[in-house]
């Protein structure tokens, strides 16, 4: 937009100077501004659109976890890295569509690849073979694709190793209730009779028909069901009755 100051362009388009400044620094053009700018610069809308990069794929970058803040529907008007001598059009310089240059791999992507390779137990030469070239020579897009593929592989491996309904649990006995859960599951499957002593000294006995982390449910001898709060229980035993 050489030849015109931002203030002049603001007068011509009605687009505030700060917004124009953002467009210059690479922000996506709002669709309604395409026409205003094209008219003010006396160029076709397609010329401005040609300067815009194609929208990035609408996916989360696996290496940073950041979402692309730019919606797909908005094309980006980015300054070309080294624009060739722009042709003049009615006194206003408009750069032609620059040949697309693949941005190189970012530092964060390099670190993510190293970390992932370590997690996958890949040696440097195996990594280079898998990537097809040294990681430093990848483009950002290639790095993103490789990282996405590996993360998906890791995630499918993790989900196939997990039992259905199994939640993520810590490994320490102090942090899980797995042992009691297993004990009660086995007892219920075996149709065991549970006898519980409560804090107030009462004893209750019946067939274990259900339980939760906080309760036990018994079928009493008279056919009634009784649910006991574990907080009220001091201890209990389960015994399989002889047939």
């Amino acid at each position, binding site marked *: 937009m050489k030849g015109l100051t931002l203030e002049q362009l603001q007068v011509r388009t009605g687009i505030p100077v700060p917004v124009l400044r953002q467009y210059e620094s690479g922000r996506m053009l709002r669709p309604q501004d395409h026409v205003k700018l094209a008219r003010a610069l006396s160029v076709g809308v397609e010329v401005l659109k040609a300067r815009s990069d194609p929208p990035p794929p609408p996916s989360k970058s696996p290496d940073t976890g950041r979402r692309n803040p730019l919606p797909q529907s908005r094309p980006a008007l980015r300054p070309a890295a080294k624009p060739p001598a722009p042709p003049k059009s009615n006194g206003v310089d408009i750069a032609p569509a620059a040949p697309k240059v693949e941005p190189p791999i970012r530092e964060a992507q390099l670190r993510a690849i190293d970390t992932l390779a370590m997690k996958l137990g890949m040696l440097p030469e195996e990594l280079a073979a898998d990537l097809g070239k040294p990681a430093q020579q990848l483009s950002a897009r290639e790095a993103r694709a490789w990282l996405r593929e590996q993360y998906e592989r890791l995630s499918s491996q993790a989900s196939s190793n997990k039992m259905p309904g199994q939640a993520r649990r810590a490994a320490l006995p102090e942090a*899980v209730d797995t*042992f009691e859960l297993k004990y009660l599951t086995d007892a219920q499957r075996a149709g065991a009779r549970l006898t519980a*002593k409560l*804090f107030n000294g009462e004893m209750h006995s019946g067939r274990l028909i259900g339980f939760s982390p906080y309760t036990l449910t018994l079928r009493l001898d008279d056919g009634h069901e009784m649910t006991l709060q574990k907080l009220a229980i001091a*201890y*209990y*035993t389960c015994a399989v009755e002889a047939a």
Partner: protein
Amino acid sequence: MSLGDHLRFLRALRHEDGMNGLAAALGEADARKLREIEYRYRDLSDEDLVRKLAAYYGAPVEELMWHRARSRRALSDYLLAVHAEKRPAELRLRTGDVLTGRVVWWDLAAIGLETADNQPIVVVQRHAVVDWPLAG
């Protein structure tokens, strides 16, 4: 029995006290700290709060401090030691029972205790264990 378990027991005996009501009665700005002690067994090392709780429940401060020394972690350390040394564990419960036996397993909520050979194990709820032989 840890201080958290004991406080929960004392609060249950009073029936009417919710956690927010307790916080208000103690002059605490909110119930966050009390929840941390009761539900998450955190030792917040706030002796002033322990004194206020003792006054509120009409219990001696020493009683609460006694429970404070018997944290869940201390019970875990004991269970780990007897399990590793293949010694029988001795657990005194709030019901007055004293159970002795081999620790088969333990976890967040309970302890599986084999009190006699060829008998079903006794599942002791951790919150019911009042005392055990402390190390040292």
